[in-house]
């Protein structure tokens, strides 16, 4: 399988994630779609890593996973805090921080 097909799969997963982020209102689903986008980037990184015969891309993918885990951790902490305060869990309702 040539490298370009991995990249096409990566582009497909990234597009699904982007569409989900734009259409969904629940922050949990938005976080899941963000995860999808980051994993699409990971697929591309590992495909390129295989293309060059070098493990550096895999290291980068692992670091991306770590960052994604941190981001999800903070995001879910925010969701739990919102739930504790009986605020609506809806990104359209939570617009106090906009300009």
């Amino acid at each position: 399988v040539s490298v370009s097909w991995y990249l096409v799969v990566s582009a497909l997963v990234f597009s699904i994630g982007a569409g989900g982020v734009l259409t969904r209102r629940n922050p949990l689903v938005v976080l899941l779609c963000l995860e999808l986008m980051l994993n699409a980037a990971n697929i591309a990184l590992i495909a390129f890593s295989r293309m060059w015969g070098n493990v550096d891309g895999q290291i980068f993918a692992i670091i991306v996973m770590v960052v994604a885990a941190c981001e999800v951790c903070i995001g879910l902490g925010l969701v739990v805090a919102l739930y504790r305060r009986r605020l609506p869990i809806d990104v359209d309702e939570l617009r106090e921080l906009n300009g």
Partner: protein
Amino acid sequence: MVLYVFVVSYVGMAEASHFKAPIGGGQRVLAMLFAFALFVELSIAVLASGLQAIGTDGPTVAFGFGGPEQIGRALLTDFLLPFEVASYLLLIAAVGAVVLARRRGGIHEEEQRVSAMSFLRPPGVGTMAEAVEGRTGTPVHRELGPSAGDGAAAGEPTSPRGSGL
């Protein structure tokens, strides 16, 4: 992923209706259009790329390429600083999540304590917990409200078991 399961079960199924409630109308269509356009554009960028190496299978690599041994060696020699920084990042994120989701005393009102006995026990039996929360009396007594109860208290008692503490 496990964290997702825990948070979804904590937040509860009352919010599950939001899962099926996407934004309406034009923005939804526009977002789908944008996602599709993004996919087409990325596919064009990949498939029509001038990079010759993308169309090939890549070099033949040795068996065990990208295995745990190679990754571990690379992580602990060439990428030791990013490895350590990532560990600190994880630590800070864990602490931050705990701080965010912590129960704050005094900022918002105390959460109501729910025990299984409050469902099993018939209301108005005059337990100590009901007395503390001011819920003594039968349901009829509570429907009348405190003002009606006080007004009627001068006359006849509205609840036979209301003062049976």
